[in-house]
């Protein structure tokens, strides 16, 4: 079983549109949407939800007003400025529990909180594990790990060959969580200065965690000069540029119709994504 995770560093480079197409092209796969913060893959795949589970995670301090003597020690010691006027701000609370240990009146307890939901759905392109992190919640890394774990179990049970994950933007906690232990990372970038800057950082994270990476330059014709410098950068660093996808409105047109590009048309974007998937399969087998 091989797992390919699609990342981008910078948001909006076309990650999800490409994964949607890869989902259609690949066989014997399970899909995992690890962008639990702003999941979009389901919009292309028209899933029917088969299982819904609550995601409970993290703790938050709760002060019992009747026991509280308003001594103020918790406010003084909290490093996250989460307690004001003897009330905990659950958004600022990091759940460290320091206050609950030091409260002389034993007025503070830690309570577990619901942090989101996760789903197992069926789509015509295979099973999909996806999730929704509660607004302003922490622990997205844990939820990502859970989504991947579930996808792995489904792959094992149904004897599927591939796990294809849509990773979150950025380079922080949820990205690291979606990357560690994967067989291959596909980085979707765009030929903008921001795109290049973020590509370098996300490749650094892949290297740090020992995950081999390949690059796809999306909308490459937007700025051919930048495209050339991305290729040069990749070559220098031994990273394969596996695809160059032209800018074409058919990507958005497909999205508006709730379809993937390869289903929507057989244009140049679709052709390039097809060849990209072939290269990914070769990489994963070789």
């Amino acid at each position, binding site marked *: 079983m091989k797992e390919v995770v699609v990342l981008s560093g910078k948001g909006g480079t076309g990650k999800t549109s490409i994964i949607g197409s890869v989902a259609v092209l690949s066989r014997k796969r399970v899909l995992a949407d690890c962008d639990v913060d*702003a999941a979009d893959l389901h*919009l292309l795949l028209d899933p029917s939800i088969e299982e819904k589970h609550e995601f409970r995670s993290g703790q938050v301090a709760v002060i019992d007003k009747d026991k509280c003597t308003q001594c103020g020690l918790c406010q003084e010691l909290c490093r*996250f400025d989460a307690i004001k006027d003897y009330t905990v701000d659950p958004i600022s609370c990091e759940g460290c529990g320091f206050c609950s240990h*030091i409260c002389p009146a034993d007025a503070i307890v830690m309570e577990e909180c619901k942090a989101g939901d996760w789903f197992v759905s069926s789509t015509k392109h295979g099973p999909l594990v996806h999730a929704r*992190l509660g607004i*302003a919640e922490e622990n997205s890394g844990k939820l990502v790990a859970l989504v991947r774990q579930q996808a792995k179990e489904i792959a094992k049970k149904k004897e599927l060959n591939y796990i294809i994950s849509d990773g979150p933007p950025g380079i922080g906690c949820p990205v690291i969580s979606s990357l560690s232990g994967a067989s291959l990372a596909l980085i979707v970038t765009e030929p903008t200065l*921001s795109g290049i800057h*973020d590509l370098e950082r996300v490749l650094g994270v892949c290297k740090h965690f020992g995950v081999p990476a390949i690059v796809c330059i999306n909308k490459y014709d937007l700025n051919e000069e930048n495209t050339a410098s991305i290729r040069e950068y990749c070559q220098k660093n031994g990273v394969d540029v596996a695809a160059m996808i032209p800018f074409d409105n058919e990507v958005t047109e497909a999205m*508006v119709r709730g379809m993937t590009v390869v289903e929507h048309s057989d244009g140049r974007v679709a052709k390039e994504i097809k060849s990209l998937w072939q290269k990914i399969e070769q990489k994963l087998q070789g």
Partner: protein
Amino acid sequence: MIISVASGKGGTGKTLVAASLALSLKDTYKVQLLDCDVEEPNDHIFIKPDITRSEAVSIPVPAIDEKKCTHCGKCAEVCAYNAIAVVAEHVLTFPELCHGCGACSYLCPEKAISEIPNTIGKIETGEADGIIFGHGMLSIGQPMAPPIIRKVKTLIDKERTVIIDSSPGTSCPVVEAIKGSDFCLLVTEPTPFGLNDLILAVETVRQLGVPFGVVLNRIGVGDSKTEEYCAKENIPILLTIPLDTEIARLYSRGIPLVEGMPDWKSKFRELFDNIKEIVDEGSRSLKR
């Protein structure tokens, strides 16, 4: 006044809006631009500030004085993040799991734990043609963005018009960036992805109680569902930017929209005036 720029979906034009707004206002107001997208900061590419100061951001992690330690296990017991383990005659610490809450050192009965800084990133400050600039950068391989965002936000100069660029999404780093703003601009595009993520972002800013409006970028592509949603929810669309390959090309070269196409300056000033009006009205109605 503090205006934060956010979006549920990535790549909708947050940086374009934040940089253009700062550049359009700098001749009239004292402007400060703070890039709180510490995972992938990009504003400096457009603003090109002279960075004059760089400071490491660290969180305090435990250091054990083996001579004083009696291996009682209290520190491991109180650590909510399992960042300390006590086995037999050893105390093991795992700095990357530590959130720096300080519980272990405070509660150690032998006072055997001190705190040492563990660097997780840096902040840099400088100036670009009258704009006071600051941004944070998370080190590669480090997971915790919020402490760096908090550090960037300590730079806020209340005397200035402060523009904060946040990371995309709706989770803790975004909340950390938006929290405390007087107004939040949500940048989106009129596509199904853009709308889906806008709805999530709207829930987030509503929960934070920050007044907000929408910038609709790349009009002309996609559908009209985002506008319909905003109308239904009474969310003001404060600026629309068309889908224009020239705008995209400028962006790709790191040229701010208002520099490449100076006509846009007046539109961004108008955007600011509208924001000001909404914020002033809000504070008037509060006083009433």
